[in-house]
């Protein structure tokens, strides 16, 4: 990984989402539904929330650097 942190994080989020989709092709019993509700959804929601805030903050930091280059 060599891009901006939040962009790399979003790429990882897409990758883990693809891994979950692949798993769901083979695992779709009640346990899978329970796992999705109790573990998967909170994981994705919290990750997405963090990466959004991180992205906004990284934009602010970039602007601070840019606007103070005299």
């Amino acid at each position, binding site marked *: 990984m060599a891009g901006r942190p939040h962009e790399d*994080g979003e790429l*990882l989020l897409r990758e*883990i989402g693809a*891994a979950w989709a*692949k798993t769901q092709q*083979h695992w779709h019993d009640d346990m899978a539904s329970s796992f999705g509700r109790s573990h998967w959804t909170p*994981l994705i929601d919290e990750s997405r929330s963090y990466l959004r805030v991180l992205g906004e*903050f990284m934009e602010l*930091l970039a602007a601070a650097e840019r606007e*103070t280059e005299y």
Partner: protein
Amino acid sequence: MTDVADIHADIEALKELASALTRYRHAQREVADRGDYQIAATRASLEEKASQWRSLLARRQADLAACQHAAAMDTEAGGHPGCHAEAAAVREAEDRIESIRRWQQQVEDGASAFVGPSSRFRNLLDVDLPRTEHHLLAIIDGLEAARGVRAARS
């Protein structure tokens, strides 16, 4: 005819998911570390710029004072071109310092707002996600035990 691998495809898929989650945990921790590093780097950079401009301001103020002193002496002797350039240079340095100070405050405000989400995400990576991985492994163990299979864990 159904292949044995097809029967246990869910187990293999769960193993792959568990591995993917472990990789995700490590990689996202690196992302969080890089984010924190970027905050520290920007703070240091802004402070360095502020320091440079404060030094420049001190020099420019000294230049202005010298100019004004010379002007006072020359006025008695008949005239002085003025210290407009020196005064403008001082004002520029003051403006730059004030601008940097405002950006520093914005960065600190942003950092304060970032603390909560960052802490929750690190807790997710360090506490919740390992639990999820253990839960998945327990599910895998349960499925393997129920079916009487014991494949090598990937």
